[in-house]
């Protein structure tokens, strides 16, 4: 899995592979880390990172945490979660050309099928997130080339639910 972790103005992608209980590999930028870990208490984590013992004190949410290591506090934010939260606050916003949910959602209803011709603004799929339903619409006129989900599926931002080949577009 991937995290977009921001400290001050510096955002780095962390690619994480959990190997087993208490063991993971992480690639941060171009640095590789082998980590074993265990939670000692409510805010206390003990890790071995590339052979070095590190005890970290952590408090916060999935969006942002305060981490203290060897007396130094550092605030770490998950840029992706923060973005979702800010989208959430301003309501559903369909991104421009892609038919993708703005936040993790569940597919409630699919209103088109492959090869249907649709008009700009036509309803395509109904999704539900945080107990609110919203409908994703066609950003341009065209024909449906793919329906990538089924009712009941969970969908993530970035995932293309419906693909439309626009008239006069590739």
């Amino acid at each position: 899995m991937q995290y977009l972790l921001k400290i001050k103005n510096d955002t780095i992608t962390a690619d994480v592979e959990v190997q087993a209980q208490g063991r993971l590999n992480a690639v941060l930028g171009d640095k590789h880390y082998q980590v074993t870990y265990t939670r000692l208490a409510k805010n206390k984590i003990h890790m071995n990172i590339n052979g070095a013992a590190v005890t970290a004190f952590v408090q916060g949410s999935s969006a942002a945490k305060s981490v203290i290591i060897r007396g130094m506090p550092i605030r770490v934010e998950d840029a992706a979660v923060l973005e979702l939260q800010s989208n959430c606050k301003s309501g559903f916003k369909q991104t421009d050309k892609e038919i993708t949910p703005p936040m993790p959602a569940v597919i409630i209803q699919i209103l088109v099928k492959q090869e249907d011709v649709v008009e700009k603004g036509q309803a395509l799929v109904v999704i539900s997130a945080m107990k609110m339903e919203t409908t994703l619409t066609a950003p341009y006129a065209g024909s449906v080339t793919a329906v990538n989900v089924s009712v009941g599926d969970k969908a993530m931002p970035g995932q293309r639910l419906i693909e439309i080949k626009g008239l006069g577009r590739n």
Partner: protein
Amino acid sequence: MFKKILIANRGEIALRVIHTCKEMGIKTVAVYSEADTNAKHVHAADEAVYLGPSQPSASYLNFGKLFEAAKKSGAQAVHPGYGFVSENCEFAQRCQNEDIIFIGPPAEVIRRLGDKLTARRIMLESGVPVIPGLTHVTGVETMLQECEAIGYPVLVKAAAGGGGKGIRRVDTPEALSAACDTVSREAAAAFGDSAVYVEKFLQKARHVEFQIIADAYGNVIHLLERECSIQRRHQKIIEETPSTALTPRLRRAMGDAAVAAARAAGYINAGTVEFILVPEGKFYFLEVNTRLQVEHPITEMVTGIDIVRQQIEIAAGSRLSLRQEEIFARGHAIECRIYAEDPQNNFFPSAGEITFLQEPAGPGIRNDCGIYEGCKVPVEYDPILSKLVAHGQSRDIAIQRMIHALEDFVVMGVETPIPFLLDVLKSIPFSEGETHTDFIESHFAQWEPSLIHSDLARIAFIVDELTQNSGTITNESTSMKSPWQTLGRWRP
């Protein structure tokens, strides 16, 4: 000996006094305001009396409430700690009137030494060297003339001030008049007395103070010095003993001067004589603090003497059992004051609830801590959380000990200057003992925390996310539990 003592204070110092009382088998009475209802010092005492609303004037500074608490509880003596009523001669006088022993010097001594101008005069008359300056308040014309003679820069100070408050530096004659007005106005507001005086500002100075103890029978000794030069805006943040600047000869001379000063003032009980030491090895009287000092633990660590116990015994009428020849220091001790302050935000006070606390421990570590996990840090008072003290065989060992203790001291929920203190202690100027009162300005004026552990912090973030529901205790973090956390991550 007293059977019951009321501690007219709060936080870490109230706890510290309670400790010694318990050791001596003396019953303790704590007092508390609204904000301190569940404070640590309240639980630690044998009994606790509610004073009133949180503002100091309605509680810790309220004579009526304090005396009512003393009467109600049957306390025979009051220990005032530091701050609040500890240097209030009216309070001490009222104790005398109401037949309650004030654990400190006589009211008259507090009054005379509390007026910095009177204190200077007493010292001058007794041959204790004082900083060149004016000892009497005069008009601006005379001040200008005198300052010419003293030489700029000068410090304009409030006569009723002390503890680093009510001070302005003046570099040119043109700025003198305005500075006097400012200090005068501030002094009137803060201390109820607008009188000011000027003193020569000494460059590359060190603030070195001597602990003195005197009994009611004329015996006065000192318990060596404390170096308190690391200050921010005239407030001490790191103190140590012995001072790296004192030769045995200088120590003897200053110690003798401190004792002479105490005698000149008719001092009884514990107090501190503060000096300014300049590079040429000359020292000058600064002021006398007629109370227990915040930084007294470092003296206790190197001498092995319990100063609070001495205070109680003297107040109970005992003779001083210590002789000057017996007083010597072993090793080196350093203290760091841990305030609820944000070093990244100009040390602005940081109120809140202590959501996590891990205190350091180990050989030579003492933590006088007034907080516990789950307690709230009120906004109404001085935000001192604890005093962390490290004692070691040598200065280098004490420094290493302090660094590791600071790294092990974890406070979450409020900001603390711990990262700043770590950088100061690890610095070369500190390790070289080049501690003058301009230390912070010179070396740490634009401090920013280092992000050396950035990647480790990112990894810790990830591990924290992954282990949310494992371990013995679930993380009741401050987040709103949104469905997104239960949906989890399905990144490809």
